[in-house]
């Protein structure tokens, strides 16, 4: 029969916390893109209209610039960036091609419902060199999508419209229930944007793409309501250890 001396107290299992699932997905994507040769760069969340809109070929009359879509601060002198694309502009102004950057962070739009939030996260990438083509963009996008969703996933490219890319595409994946789900926007950088950043568009061309981090997280984790990510509920967060 065992004695007191044989008794060992129960093992003290560590009580782990968790990195926020949105940051887990964001970091995963940034690491992935760094592995492809992109350099991670950062930019401010409070931006000038010039960098957030004008330089990206988003005209003064574009609906996105209206007060009902964009947060303005300091007596309309600045905006809360509506996308991470101003970081592309800053990179193009700072460095000469060839240039491959990726940027991730918070962006803001004046939305608030079950599928949209006033703050969410984007990850973007941009590559500029001589003779960058749409067919190369497709190669890169396939690699990214396969890395996130697996090699078996079915992908569809659709024409779309973004003022800063031309041609532009949206990329869908086929879900298990047979529905196409949009996961990524991309395109060939509009020559107007290159010229705005003093890059010779006759010599250089570029590609750009952007993903919504919440969108990817919702699909990968099976979260249906985007608001769950921002309740700071430990019962929710502790699942992502």
């Amino acid at each position, binding site marked *: *029969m065992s004695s*007191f001396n044989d*008794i060992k*107290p*129960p093992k*003290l299992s560590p*009580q782990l*916390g968790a*990195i*926020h699932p949105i940051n*887990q*997905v964001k*970091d*995963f994507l940034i*690491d992935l893109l760094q592995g492809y*040769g*992109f350099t991670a*760069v950062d930019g*401010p*969340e*409070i931006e000038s209209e010039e960098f957030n809109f004008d330089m990206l070929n988003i005209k003064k*009359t*574009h*609906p996105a610039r209206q*007060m009902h879509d964009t*947060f*303005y*601060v*300091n007596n*309309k002198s*600045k905006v*809360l960036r509506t996308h991470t694309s101003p970081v592309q502009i800053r990179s193009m102004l700072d*460095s000469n*091609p060839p240039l491959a*950057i990726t940027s991730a962070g918070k962006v803001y739009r004046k939305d608030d419902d079950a599928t949209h939030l*006033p703050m969410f996260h984007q990850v973007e990438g941009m590559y500029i060199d001589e*003779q960058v*083509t*749409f067919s190369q963009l497709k*190669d890169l996008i396939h690699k990214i999508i396969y*890395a996130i969703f697996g090699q078996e996933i079915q992908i*569809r*490219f*659709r*024409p779309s*419209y973004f003022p800063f890319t031309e*041609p532009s595409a949206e990329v869908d994946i086929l879900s298990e229930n047979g529905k196409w789900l949009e996961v990524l926007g991309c395109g*060939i950088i*509009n020559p107007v944007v290159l010229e705005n950043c003093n890059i010779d568009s006759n010599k250089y061309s570029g590609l750009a793409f952007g993903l919504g981090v919440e969108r990817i997280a919702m699909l990968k984790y*099976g*979260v249906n309501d985007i608001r769950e990510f*921002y309740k*700071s*509920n*430990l*019962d*929710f967060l*502790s699942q*992502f*250890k």
Partner: protein
Amino acid sequence: MKFLYKDLLNFLSEKPSKKLLSEKLFQLGHEHEIAGDIFDMELTPNRGDCLSLNGLARDLNVFFGKVQPYKIYEGDILPLNFNFKNLSTDACPKISFLEIEIEGAIAAYKPYLENYFSLLGNKKVNFFTDVSNYISYELGQPTHCFDSSTMNNQLTFENKICQESFKTLLGSNINLDGKNCIFSVDDKIISLAGVMGGKSTACSSQTRKVLIECAYFKPEEIIGKSIKYNLVSDAAHKFERGVDIQAHEKVLRRFVAIVQDHAVIKNFKIQTFDDAAIDQSRIPFDLERVNKILGIDIEKEKYLMILNKLGIEINNNEVNVPSYRHDISSQNDLAEEIARVLGYDSIKSKPLDIKNNLNENIKHIYKFKNFLVQNGFSEVINFPFTSSKDKKSITIDNPLDSNKRYLRTSLKSSLLENLQYNERRQNDSIKLFEISDLYSKDDQTNQERKLGIIISGRRGHNYADFSKKLDFNYLNQILNEGLENDIFTIEEISRADLKTKKKDKIFYTEVLIENIPADMYKDYKPIEEKINFIKYQPVSEFPSSVRDFSFSIVDFDKYNIVIDLISSLDDDILKHAYVFDFYENKKLKEIKVGVRLIFQSVLCTLSEEEIQKTLHRLLKPILDLEGVSVPGL
């Protein structure tokens, strides 16, 4: 924009199935949903030219051929001598007016017109307005009908600053302010141009003489007006995206033809005020550039054929863009046209070898975050909007919630809210952190990246920590493992102002990320080890129930069996189970193991009966052991 499948087929030579039509619309970039015979289109904002049957058919011509299924009035039309003054030709470079007078009653609507209302669910208003709405559906050009009997004096168009009330034809009163495109008679506004007409000049079922206005308004003058005045306007939707400045005569001749189908026309006259110097968009022919953009090698004949089918002509080595295609102005735009027709999925991928001038990656404090996680801290992300203002706060000019119009300058209040939220959800051990950029202003906008940490409650749920509280010393000790002592200050947050009955002390600290030592900026893990995409389980919104048991073990041979059984407890409604107490009573030769079971359902509040039933099932294998008991159970 919604259309009937059969209506679009009338515009096409070939008659594709719904499935094939849907596939080709997607290939061309026209998203949609299908419900029965109705296609509900979600067109990109640069393709205003496709907001009609005619426009979609023009785009689909390359696949199915396009025909003109409708008749237009081909005869001569008398000139109208209309008293009109355009004071803002920049905003409205071209405008046409058609005056029609009919006699007698309106015949029953022909099927093409009737179906537009009955099958698409559109609401009839009056005959002339109904024709106007139908033509917009068919040809994409909005027109507006004024009852001629209400228009005795000069009509004036002007883009000007207004500050007056205006009653729309739907009866709502709107207060105009700022710059607006308006039509006026005798200085009284009768129509918010490009958006909605007014009540005072609206047609009715009695109208027999009508003035139809057909205009080109510059998109930038119309954008945002319908949202600003909360008006639902199909006309504004189209003008904002750009209509065809060359289409007026065709549209008005079609109007005449439809009226002729339904009534006897006494007379009709037309007049156009054209102040536009039409500058057709021309792009140099450069197939090599288009091939380079796409990374393909399309032949000249095929390139020309595709452009031709899209209505784009080549003359004198120049690509002439049709007046309805406001989205084409460069070689990249032409490349997109080719890619759309070939199909994006048909363009083969080519390997990309990335060359890069930049080598410096931004530094992430993965290691420090992982250190916190290992110690039980969970990361949160909060919105930056707050009601708290300090002298450096940045103000949001147009907040979503007017009570939260400032950007936070500290993480404290957000983390305090997170802590209280979790306390209300019966969480008794809370360790949270957040890393975020914070913004403030003095002479300029300042940006700081900060880490905030908040703790309160039990140190942990293990028996070693259960009865200890999270306190100053705990946090100080944790932080001192990774940080220099002089870069953080721990404060106790008083509960005096918090609406809570909790007594546990709250401690908080905020650290500038730039002060965190460089050796905390390392520790990348390989990607495949970095993330585990678990399938999330919905979180319960119902209260949990706690049950504590103290197992007395006098047969020490059973000790390990008991511990194993406790660690393997499992049930759908068992949220947590842990050993919160362990005591060896050498005097009584007894081991005490305290176990806490927390029950919660995602479906409902659990009844005592449900909990007892589950408890009985879970505990029976333990209590059946000889020498193991729960005193008092």
